[in-house]
């Protein structure tokens, strides 16, 4: 199968030379004789490597501003005889609100909500038992059946090949070998970009000749996942479109389960992402539990409580007609959350089903983790700033949804800054008294208790509903580290916010597995670039 069978993106026509030059140099065709040499060079050599320490100055600066200066300020006020108890209680209130939300979500997530109707046992007693168990969320998993035949489906895999050339073939093989075929057929489009010709492209072409369902689409001039996906949408023929990243391995019944919700009137179904390389190290173990908490608890509860949720960038199943209208915005840091907001604001509905599972690779080193979370923080802030006000005025959101989405957008942004103020408060106390005196304020005690309890409770619930039987040690260490893990994420988030507010929109490709993070340009920058094809999880 030839690449051109699907049509390449040669939409740049009749342009001035200068304009064309802005795009052309990004594709560097290297001589055939050099390909082997190039393939032996490390990816790092070709596209650069970045370490988290490049942000060290921003980390120090932002925390000096947010912790150091407030510590001195509070200390001065204490010396001046001011009582900061009221301020302390205000901050504690934020902790209580967040903890209550976590507890509500976790409790809600104990109750299952399946994509398929419950089979009714013949026996009355069994039916009663099933009802009770279902209401308590104690029913077990079961295979999915759908009422109407599944229409033709398309899977869009977006990839930035220099970054993902080592894993893409495995992913395509997995999809082609695993996913159930609808009667009208399945189409698999690999939409990729690369600044240089790569040997892997020959292998992909061979593969496409063996698997007619596979269509290769090299998107010339693309610098983002959004551009790749938009190009692929122009040629997609399925009625349902599934979006996956290059490292995602979906389950066989993913379309069957998603189809159930689409038949019910939903326009997008978001599945559950599970970490495949969880055993790599302590970081991946924590991320695995965190993902279970996010996709198994938080998103699920959000969907159940508000009948709306987010599209996380992958393992999302779209009604093709809707996605072809929504499309993706290449100018956004997190094009998936941007698409979520535009989808909801346009009156479409998104549902989360944690029984639709795909596995993915977590960043296995700290630098990758740093840049991934920083980009999420920047993207989340960008989306919050752009869409929060429109949520408040939208006729497509119920009052409850507006409250919940305010909690998800502005509240979460503000919370990460407010929560940090607990440190300068305590440090100033330490400076002033020489110790942190015990308080007899019951409200402060309550906030401390509920904050720690919510973390442990969330971990316990996550352990119960986890899709993978991880070792219990994972959960124990997650519960033990959750405080520090949260602080770490908060620190990264602050740096991300700082970057966003400073107008620095440059970001870094999230490497897969054990790879190191690479220098990548912003989708809106002027540099020749690649893309970061990772999903966005709040």
């Amino acid at each position, binding site marked *: 199968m030839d690449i051109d069978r699907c049509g390449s993106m040669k939409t*740049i026509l009749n342009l001035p030379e200068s304009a064309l030059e802005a795009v052309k140099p990004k594709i560097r065709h290297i001589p055939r004789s050099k390909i082997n040499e190039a393939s032996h060079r490390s990816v790092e050599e070709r596209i650069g490597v970045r370490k988290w320490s490049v942000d060290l100055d921003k980390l120090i600066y932002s925390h000096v501003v947010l912790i150091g200066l407030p510590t001195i300020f509070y200390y001065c006020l204490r010396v001046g005889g001011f009582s900061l108890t009221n301020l302390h209680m205000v901050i504690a209130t934020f902790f209580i609100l967040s903890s209550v939300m976590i507890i509500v979500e976790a409790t809600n997530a104990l109750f299952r909500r399946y994509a398929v109707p419950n089979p009714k046992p013949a026996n009355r007693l069994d039916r009663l038992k099933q009802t009770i168990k279902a209401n308590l969320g104690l029913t077990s998993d079961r295979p999915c059946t759908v009422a109407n035949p599944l229409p033709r489906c398309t899977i869009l895999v977006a990839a930035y090949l220099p970054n993902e050339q080592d894993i893409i073939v495995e992913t395509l093989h997995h999809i082609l070998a695993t996913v159930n075929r609808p009667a009208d057929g399945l189409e698999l489009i690999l939409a990729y970009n690369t600044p240089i010709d790569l040997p892997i492209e020959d292998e992909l072409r061979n593969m496409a000749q063996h698997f007619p369902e596979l269509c290769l689409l090299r998107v010339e001039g693309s610098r983002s996942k959004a551009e790749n996906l938009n190009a692929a949408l122009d040629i997609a023929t399925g009625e349902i479109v599934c979006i996956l990243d290059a490292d995602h391995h979906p389950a066989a019944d993913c379309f069957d389960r998603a189809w159930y919700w689409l038949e019910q009137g939903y326009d997008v179904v978001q599945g559950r992402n599970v970490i495949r390389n969880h055993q790599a190290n302590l970081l991946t173990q924590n991320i695995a539990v965190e993902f279970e908490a996010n996709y198994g608890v938080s998103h699920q509860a959000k969907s159940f409580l508000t009948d709306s949720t987010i599209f996380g960038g992958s393992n999302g199943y779209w009604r093709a007609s809707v996605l072809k209208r929504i499309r993706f915005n290449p100018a956004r840091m997190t094009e998936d959350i941007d698409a979520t907001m535009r989808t909801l604001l346009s009156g479409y509905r998104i549902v989360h089903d944690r029984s639709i599972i795909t596995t993915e690779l977590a960043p296995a080193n700290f630098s990758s983790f740093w840049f991934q979370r920083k980009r999420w923080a920047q993207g989340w802030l960008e989306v919050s700033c752009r869409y929060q006000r429109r949520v408040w005025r939208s006729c497509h959101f119920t009052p409850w949804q507006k409250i919940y989405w305010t909690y998800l957008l502005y509240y979460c942004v503000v919370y990460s800054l407010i929560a940090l103020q607990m440190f300068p408060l305590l440090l100033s106390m330490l400076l002033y008294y020489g110790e942190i005196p015990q308080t007899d304020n019951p409200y402060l005690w309550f906030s401390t208790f509920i904050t720690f309890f919510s973390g442990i409770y969330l971990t316990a619930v996550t352990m119960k509903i986890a899709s993978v039987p991880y070792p219990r040690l994972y959960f124990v260490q997650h519960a033990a580290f959750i405080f520090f893990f949260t602080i770490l994420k908060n620190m990264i988030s602050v740096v991300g916010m700082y970057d966003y507010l400073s107008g620095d929109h440059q970001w870094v490709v999230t490497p897969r597995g054990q790879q190191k993070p690479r220098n990548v340009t912003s989708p809106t920058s002027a540099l020749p670039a690649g893309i970061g094809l990772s999903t966005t999880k709040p």
Partner: protein
Amino acid sequence: MLVLGALTLDSWVVVSMEWISVNGLRSERSPRIAWIEGIRILGVVMLLLYHAQLRFTGYAYTPKPTGLADNLQRLILPVGILPDRSELAHLLGIPAWFGFQFIDVFVLISGFCLVVSLPGQPLDSGRFLRRRLVRVLWPFWTTAWMAYLALWAIASITHTAIPNLWQIFAATTFPLLFSYNGEPLMSTSSSWWVMSLILSFVLLAPFLCMLLQRWGAANLLLASTVLTLGYRALAVRMFDSYPTYVIWEGASGWQPFASVLAKLSTFVLGMVVGHFYLRHRGPALWTAQKALIVGIPVYCLGFVAQFYRIGWIVADLLVPIGLALICMVICRFLAENYQLEAFMLKLGSYSYSYFLVQGLVVDRTMQLVIGGNPVRYDLLLPVMVAGTLVLAMIVDYVTPLLRRIVGGILRDIDYVLVATPDLPRSLWDPKIGDAVRYRGEAGWTVLKVEKLLDERDCLLCQVSDGHRSLWVNEDDLEPAGERS
């Protein structure tokens, strides 16, 4: 205090004008000239030293219209007043007594930079005023908001006074409580009352640009010089007033000399020099020899004139011409060194914030640390110079962050309260290959167009200027031939 306030009035005006005409926010800055930046650095440091010396000596010396001999004698007097101060320190401190002269140098180069920053472009007054006001006010608000937190903490720990809530409200909401004499702002920083005059200059700038084009450089310079000389003569002879840097008795005080009219011709002269500079002519391109041959005598004339009442009419017109020419020669020489050139360009950008902060730093350092101790004064003088620079950098760093946060909050409030939220509507239909302006900047071409759904169909365009390409919303674009 009167002198101090008047001095910094001028400095604020000129630095702000310099800032607004050339620098603004760093991201939007016009190309800068190293020797101009060098003069600005020299000027702001000299003004800080002047400010500090006045405070430390209790206004021991200011020029008075009692003749050259008397003033030279009085220049030696501060040693007698402060016997602990060494002879050497006193001699080194003499130039600082005349630091105020850089005020008028700033006025001059403000006019120059205003014209140089708008080469051949027809001036859109609305756009110009909007951008300049934002550039003047945001650093001020940032300084004020940060200063009050700092002052509150300092007052708590040192049990000293802090401006009352009304005064804080006046400063943090300026120009809500617009007052020409700036009384509510002076309790925080004696120089802050001049913000109102800065706004006057901002409002006048587009008008002067229009006159420069309409009347021509020579006619505008002639008219403004006649106007300024006439006004200054009135101020001296009829209003019974005196220059801002003089302690004297007069019926009208120093305020007439703080008016825009008192500085107008100097500003216009700067504009005219800028006008010729764009045509590769004029004093800004003079050789060092020619500049010094003209500059030194003119400066000397102006210097002597300030010691005579009749000389007040022309002193502030002559001094900046001579001083600017001398400084130009020195800074151009220094800027021949690549590292010094980079240094000037870098530090010059902080001059406006430096001015906003310097009064606060000097006042508090004098009050809380130095007291009347000459040793501490000598030791802390360089610390004040460097510390003010650090604080100015922080202000410039924080300003865009605050601007974005506050702007976002205001946009949210507006969107929620507006009767019918109006999503931007397409006014035109960009096509691939169209020549467009991106945020007012010409030279961009549309490479790709994407149609997205965002409650309504909207277009996203990939545009390129031949060097860069980026995705932008259609609202940021306009056809190349049109200006909104």
